[in-house]
């Protein structure tokens, strides 16, 4: 059995964090291998090593029987590996042709022969049945077209192994069909494809072999005929349930009402598609879903950080239409952001300053514009004790705290506002078990007090532990809302991956 590519026991460590733990994959010529897993499972890290953008801590890459080492993307490209990135690496001002041939430009007498380039691109495009307009500016092309440019680019570079990183995340259903056809055609032409994705229905359509990753390890390796969406979802998501905390039965009034929220959708796939949702007082609504299905945009729209195209958001009696972030926070909104470094803190600011955000305006900490720092410091020290935030002092730069400790600070800050409504996005990302349980307790307590919480998490166990109701988001829509007692991991993971619950089992009993 000669494989065109083997990655053997690949490990990658970032400081103390093990992103890839002895992962092995193999790929035959003309085969489509899908690597599936949730965000943070380690898929992208693995591919970055294959493409030469990262160096493995240990492990071996074997190409056509020969061990290779890539010091950079150029090595990988020259060895016939091409990567179509999740976030396109295009030059919007350059033409489609220029984008495809860059790095391997055809020359004539030392000059760039653009005419020959256009001809070659036309040939390539016809041969692989990938449709592009060679003269259009890349920036004017649709997302689907841009992806085709990226694919033609790697083919032009002579790639025999093509890596596609979450290729369908931004495509409309029609464009997805086209892409899957292209993938099959390329495989028939002898190209070997690695498809990184979390979209299981597509995997079942086009993959020959599937490797499942979770938390940096391989949790399963199967052939398509032997499995189905349900089984794959289980392997992707795992079973780690936390012990439940007591909850009081409350039948609260509607608190946050989202109606027909829409973002985008004119020429491209809508980011949010007529989304409606209600969070009641004394309720935790959890949004389950793999990152990238519109959850971030939903949160930003509610918090006031992103413009919407249509629909409205209401908190209690206050309409949020056209209102500023400050207004919304005053109306009773607090927000634990999903990216603590981008939104939740300033790395150069001190711990005290990061904690101060929002409080500096409040009457009990502000006297004729002067901030009552001493009073506030007492508050922060209280947070540090309760949440066990490890920091040498209040003046320590926020960026020097470990991710988990910064997260605890942000959670303490946002809970401290004691608002009616809280958005909690990935609230325990990067946090240790003890703190995670403390934060979960605090969130349940807030719920029991009669406040409403919108929880967004890519950790299914967290959603299941905390939520009263669970809404699953897929491709900008809420595909279903389940009550906590009817939700199981299997049902949720199927919905999260785009399947519907009526998918029949198609696995056979033979093993790989």
């Amino acid at each position, binding site marked *: 059995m000669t494989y065109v590519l083997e990655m053997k026991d690949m490990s990658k460590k970032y400081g103390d964090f093990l992103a890839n733990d002895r992962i092995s994959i193999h790929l035959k010529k003309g085969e489509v291998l899908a690597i599936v897993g949730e965000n943070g499972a380690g898929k992208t890290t693995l591919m970055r090593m294959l493409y030469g*953008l990262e160096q493995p801590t240990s492990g071996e890459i074997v190409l056509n029987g020969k061990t290779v080492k890539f010091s950079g993307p150029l090595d990988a490209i020259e060895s016939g590996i091409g990567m179509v990135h999740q976030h396109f*690496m295009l*030059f919007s001002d*350059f033409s489609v042709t220029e984008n495809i041939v*860059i*790095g391997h430009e055809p020359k004539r007498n030392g000059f760039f022969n653009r005419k020959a380039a256009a001809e070659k691109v036309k040939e390539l495009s016809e041969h692989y049945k990938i449709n592009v307009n060679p003269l259009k500016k890349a920036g004017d092309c649709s997302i689907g077209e841009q992806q085709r440019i990226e694919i033609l680019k790697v083919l032009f570079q002579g790639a025999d192994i093509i890596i596609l990183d979450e290729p369908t995340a931004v495509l409309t259903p029609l464009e997805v069909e086209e892409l899957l056809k292209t993938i099959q055609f390329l495989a028939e032409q002898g190209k070997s494809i690695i498809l990184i994705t979390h979209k299981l229905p597509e995997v079942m359509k086009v993959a020959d072999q599937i490797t499942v990753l979770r938390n940096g390890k391989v949790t399963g390796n199967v052939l398509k005929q032997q499995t189905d969406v349900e089984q794959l979802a289980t392997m992707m998501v795992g079973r780690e349930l936390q012990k439940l905390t007591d909850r009081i039965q409350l039948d609260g009034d509607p608190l946050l009402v989202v109606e027909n929220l829409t973002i985008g959708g004119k020429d491209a796939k809508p980011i949010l598609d007529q989304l409606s949702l209600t969070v009641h007082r004394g309720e935790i609504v959890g949004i389950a879903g793999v990152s990238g299905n519109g959850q971030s945009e939903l949160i930003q729209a509610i918090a006031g950080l992103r413009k919407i195209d249509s629909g409205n958001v209401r908190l209690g009696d206050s309409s949020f239409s056209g209102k500023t972030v400050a207004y919304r926070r005053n109306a009773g909104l607090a927000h634990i952001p999903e990216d603590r470094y981008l939104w939740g803190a300033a790395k150069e600011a001190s711990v005290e300053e990061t904690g101060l955000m929002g409080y500096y305006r409040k009457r009990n900490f502000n006297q004729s514009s002067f901030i009552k720092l001493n009073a506030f410091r007492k508050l922060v020290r209280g947070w540090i004790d309760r949440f066990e935030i490890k920091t040498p002092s209040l003046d320590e730069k926020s960026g020097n705290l470990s991710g988990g400790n910064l997260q605890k600070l942000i959670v303490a800050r946002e809970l401290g506002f004691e608002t009616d409504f809280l958005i909690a996005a990935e609230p325990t990302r990067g946090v240790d078990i003890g703190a995670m349980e403390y934060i979960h307790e605090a969130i349940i307590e807030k719920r029991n007090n009669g406040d409403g919480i919108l929880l967004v998490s890519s950790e299914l166990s967290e959603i299941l532990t905390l939520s009263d109701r669970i809404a699953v988001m897929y491709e900008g829509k809420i595909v279903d809302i389940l009550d906590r007692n009817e939700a199981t991991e299997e049902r949720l993971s199927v919905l999260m991956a785009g399947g519907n619950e009526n998918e029949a089992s198609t696995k056979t009993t033979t093993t790989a």
Partner: protein
Amino acid sequence: MTSMELLDLSFFTSAIRMISPILLAALGGALCTRVGIFNVGLEGLILAGAFSAIVGNYFSGSVLVAVLVGALGSVLASLLFGLAAIRFKANPIVAGIAINFLVLGLTTFGLRAIFNVKGAFYDKNMEGLPKLDIPVIEGIPVVGNLLSGHSPLVYIAFLAAIVLYIFFYRTVTGFRVLAVGKNEAAARSLGLKVTLLQYGAIVACGILCGLAGAQLSLGQVTMFTEGMTAGRGFIALVAMMLGQSHPIGIVGSSLLFGLMDALSIRLQGFSMPTQFTAMLPYIITIFAMFFLKDRGADSQLSGQQSSR
């Protein structure tokens, strides 16, 4: 006070001569901008070239060597800039300002250290750049005197614009330089030699600014005066911005600025306020900024990015 007296031939001739250092430096600046590094140190680079050219001329007696030394001096200064901005990731704006200060001090210092004079150095034995009389063209009535009889560097300036145009839009290396400036991350992911291209652009900028400086100190009167660039480096920067870092655009904007400059001087003789004509290039550029895209400086350099 007729318009004939205002715009006679010598007016245009001097305008063309005065444009050339601006044109050369602006082209150099465009190279840096296109590769993604906003170079405000043009002033210092030109001055370095001007001084080095005089030094070269004095010690070798040859104008050709002088010009080469001029280019060399400017290249050294530009390498310092490149090192700071690329290797040490200094803020390019601050690094450029530092270069300006440094060169100003060093050249004045050099006047003292090498020639033992203050203020200016002039030696009547030094030969300046020759005036090239182009055989056929000088015979053409009216235009002939305009186009012929300039120093070689003036012709090189216009030639450089054409060469740069061909470089950017017809060669592979030029294409890659443009790519680096447009999307550095994408360029790296392709395996393009980004750092090499950046240093290359900076060195080329040094050469062009060196020639600009040589034109200043050897082109009309052969002498070096302290701070003789007198803001021309910044005017070149503005010409670059107005010309959108495009070689032909820069020829246009440089011509515009040169004409305005010459006009101001003429108007002084007619006791009209010169400041308003002097202001025009800048006001025009500001208005242009409303309509043009981010050619002057990369969006990552401007607005929300402080040096802290």
